[in-house]
């Protein structure tokens, strides 16, 4: 018998600190496997953002930089401009990327910055305890929405980041994937791999938005959270490749 599935070398020995069933762990694994398969571990530089995944710098077996809340794309830009041959990625939550970090992500895309973004959309601020995120669904209850959940007339609409960034000329690859079952997890990995390949080909900005769960702050079991993602997030956040430059292989 052969091992057909084992932990990637691009993951360190540190145990994840995430809540039971939190999909951050799945995404870590996918990114690590892609880094290993593309053989770029020794020139990869990852940017950890501020959110539950702030400690990613402990989990990836590559050089890592912890960035201020929302500023990972700017930090990634700094790294990439100094070492154009490095493989630079950021790992950001929806509060980090789609709220405070909007300017930085939009302009990294507009510059066609040759970096890859892993965007974890779990429709909530996980780390700070369940406040409303820009991606929170209308009606979804959070600690700052009041008992009725997000009200469209008061707090507006969930931001569809992939659609927005696709309109920007510098973006080369934009995809939205989901983790709600093993099949989609495999697709998510394919998209992440494409994103890194786009970077390796020097095509410009790539981002994969990963629909994820936060069982703790959604107040559900991990299994129920997967179902909730499927039932509620997919309609608001359709999956697909929103942008793929013709030349992207």
């Amino acid at each position, binding site marked *: *018998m*052969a*091992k*057909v*599935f*084992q*932990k990637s070398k691009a*993951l360190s020995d540190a*145990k*994840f600190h*995430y*809540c*039971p*069933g*939190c*999909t*951050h*762990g*799945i995404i870590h*694994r996918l990114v690590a496997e892609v880094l290993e398969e593309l053989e770029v571990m020794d020139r990869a530089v990852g940017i950890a953002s501020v959110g539950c995944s702030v400690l990613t710098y402990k989990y990836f077996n590559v050089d890592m930089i912890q960035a201020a809340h929302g500023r990972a794309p700017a930090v990634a830009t700094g790294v990439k401009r100094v070492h154009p041959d490095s493989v630079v990625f950021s790992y950001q939550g929806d509060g980090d990327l789609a709220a405070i970090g909007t300017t930085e992500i939009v302009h990294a895309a507009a510059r066609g910055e040759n970096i890859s973004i892993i965007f974890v959309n779990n429709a909530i601020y996980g780390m700070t305890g369940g406040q409303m995120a820009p991606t929170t669904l209308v009606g979804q209850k959070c600690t700052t929405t009041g008992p009725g959940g997000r009200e469209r007339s008061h707090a507006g609409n969930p931001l569809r980041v992939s659609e927005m960034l696709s309109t920007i000329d510098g973006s080369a690859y934009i995809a939205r994937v989901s*983790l709600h*079952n*093993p099949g989609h*997890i*495999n697709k998510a990995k394919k998209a992440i791999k494409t994103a890194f390949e786009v970077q390796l080909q020097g095509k410009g900005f790539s981002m994969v938005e990963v629909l994820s769960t936060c*069982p703790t702050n959604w107040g559900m*079991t*991990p*299994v129920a959270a*997967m179902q909730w993602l499927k039932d509620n997030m997919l309609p608001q956040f359709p999956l697909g490749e929103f942008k793929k430059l013709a030349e992207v292989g």
Partner: protein
Amino acid sequence: MARVTFHEDWCKGCELCAAFCPKNLISLADRINEKGYRPATVVDMQKCTGCMACALVCPDVVIEVEREVS
């Protein structure tokens, strides 16, 4: 023939593997691991197809899968 191995100490008992195993082979053990969780386990290993569904959904990289490859 296939086999799954659990790094029990990493398991957080989230039951995602159990939910997605097409053969319904996985359940939580009664014992408690060092982190205070009931770890996932497979009783009826013969039925395992090595489909990897469990490993793919496990957020804590607990599971290794082995299988006959041709």
